[in-house]
């Protein structure tokens, strides 16, 4: 049999059902890889070996008893932003360094019910605020393709773990690009579903009108299998949408003949790395050869998505993170003089530099006298950006462009100026502002570093996105390539 760690979720599920391998064997094999590479990659915050083996044992019983589902026994990792009952959920922060979740996030609960085994919790930018995984209280994650470079963020641990084949798949979240950007920089597949498609219950909140749970996998096929198990209405999330979940796997093979692909003028205009552009255009040729047609579309307000985001997201962050008070849970400072001192020092010491920067930006834009000029203005521009996308989707089925302007950069290269760091998300933020589903799939290498193609769809168009990504992956092998140090 092929080496276990190189197999996709679909392949592992088949091997489990045909009893070529047991779930306990799989869990042991991946746990050993995680342990072996923890020191060099730092992809995990917690390794939940005991829980993994217990869940794998139960999965094996189900497999023996014949009541196993499509995913029973498959191991995955969870981003440490998802609450996992009885295990630590730190969100990459000192504030929650000792927080043991009293309940499971809906995503975790649904995957567990499907028989999926949890290997551990992946490292991330603190409270998902970052694009390089350098803001984590638990130290940066390293890119498996080059340990001197960042894996992207905020789901850097999930992306590095899947790229290094430490886990066949991982959950992740995306508020401004936090699934797609690290997926691109690590050479793996990432999907951010439509806002409201996946429950946010038990997912630590950053910016509630933008946050959405999703996946990082090796292939679009794996994303289809796992998304079907975790998506769908949840009454515990007030913005969860009551729509049935399609059988994503069943739609993967649809022919692309007649598919209308929008080429975003603003994405190709200026500022894009020439080599990345060459790869995206080559990927478009692959889709065109299958009958897709290209059409240029323009979203005139899209260039304003970064400034819009950096008003809306910090505003929501400052409100959401007000809950950390040093009283009910989380970090508490030593010997507070009075209540004000308790709040101020617990928060000042418990949050890292970037989180404090965002809380303060949000506090400022929401404060009296600035609310209209900043927050309401940004929400108006957000509506314009959303309208632009809506018009585009009258003309085309999907929009394709790059995921990132460059390949992975070096650790420390962009930490001195926040705005330089924020510009990494220039191509990804638009989909969050408009609540649209979007994917990143590997489409080539620039000087040995992977780059991604981004596919954005209309609301609830996940099925079409996965279909396009899958058909592309049937014709290419970029997604099957593992970083040289992690092949064996």
């Amino acid at each position, binding site marked *: 049999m092929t080496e276990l760690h190189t197999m996709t979720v679909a392949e592992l599920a088949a091997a489990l059902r045909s009893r070529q391998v047991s779930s306990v064997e799989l869990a042991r094999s991946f746990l050993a890889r995680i342990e072996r590479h923890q020191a060099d990659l730092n992809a995990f915050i917690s390794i939940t070996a005991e829980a993994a083996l217990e869940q794998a044992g139960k999965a094996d019983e189900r497999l023996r008893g014949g009541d196993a589902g499509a995913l029973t026994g498959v191991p995955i990792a969870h981003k440490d932003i998802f609450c996992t009952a009885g295990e630590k959920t730190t969100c990459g922060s000192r504030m929650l360094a000792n927080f*043991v979740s*009293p309940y499971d996030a809906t995503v975790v609960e649904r995957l567990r019910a499907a028989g999926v085994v949890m290997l551990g919790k992946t490292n991330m930018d603190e409270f998902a605020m970052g694009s390089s995984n350098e803001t984590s209280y638990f130290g940066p994650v390293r890119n498996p393709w080059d340990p001197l470079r960042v894996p992207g963020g905020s789901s850097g641990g999930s992306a590095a773990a899947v790229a290094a084949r430490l886990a066949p798949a991982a959950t992740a979240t995306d508020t401004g690009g936090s699934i797609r950007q690290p997926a691109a920089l690590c050479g793996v597949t990432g999907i951010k579903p439509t806002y409201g498609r996946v429950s946010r219950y038990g997912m630590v909140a950053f910016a509630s009108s933008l946050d959405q749970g999703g996946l990082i996998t090796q292939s679009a096929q794996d994303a289809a299998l796992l998304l079907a198990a975790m998506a769908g209405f949840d009454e515990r999330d007030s913005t969860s949408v009551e729509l049935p979940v399609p059988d994503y796997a069943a739609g993967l093979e649809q022919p692309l003949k007649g598919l209308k692909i929008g080429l975003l003028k603003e994405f190709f205009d*200026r500022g894009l790395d020439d080599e990345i552009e060459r790869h995206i255009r080559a990927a478009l040729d692959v889709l065109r050869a299958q009958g897709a047609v290209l059409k240029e579309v323009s979203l005139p307000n899209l260039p304003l998505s970064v400034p*819009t985001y950096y008003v809306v997201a910090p505003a929501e962050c400052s409100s959401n993170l007000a809950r950390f008070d040093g009283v009910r849970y989380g970090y*508490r400072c030593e010997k507070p003089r009075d209540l004000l001192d308790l709040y101020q020092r617990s928060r*000042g010491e418990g949050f890292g530099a970037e989180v404090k920067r965002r809380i303060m930006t949000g506090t*400022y834009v929401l404060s009296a006298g600035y609310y209209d000029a900043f927050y*309401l203005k940004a929400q*108006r521009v957000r509506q314009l950006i959303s309208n632009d996308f809506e018009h585009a989707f009258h003309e085309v089925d999907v929009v394709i462009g790059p995921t990132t302007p460059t390949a992975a950069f070096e650790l420390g290269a962009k930490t001195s100026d926040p705005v330089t760091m924020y510009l990494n998300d220039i191509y990804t933020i638009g989909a969050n502002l408009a*609540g649209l589903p979007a994917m990143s799939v590997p489409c080539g290498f620039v000087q040995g570093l992977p780059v991604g193609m981004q596919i954005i769809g209309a609301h609830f168009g996940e099925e079409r996105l996965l279909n396009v990504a899958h058909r592309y992956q049937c014709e290419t092998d970029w997604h099957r390539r593992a970083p040289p140090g992690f092949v064996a």
Partner: protein
Amino acid sequence: MYDFAPFFLPEIEPIAMSLNHRDIENIAYLARLALTVEEIPVYVEGLSRILAMVAELERADTSQVEPMAHPLPGQRTRLRADVVTETDRHQLFQRNAPQVEAALYLVPRVIE
């Protein structure tokens, strides 16, 4: 300037948006964040840069558009029925509390 600033480098100079030391102290107070003296100048610079970038929003004509209220068109936040659905699990939840006594959260004295 920025690596790929051409993507949205403003055609007009953005309004100068700079904050000073006192502004940062005031914002930090509103946000209930204790900052060290070393942190303050870092945030003076960082927030000023962010606000200069954000000032580009001025370029958009938004006179004919309402602020977005929900990311999905036509959706409204769903309300649930006003009935008790949760059981009392305070013991479990208070395991994460820094200081608890007799099921009460302890804080420094508020009323003298």
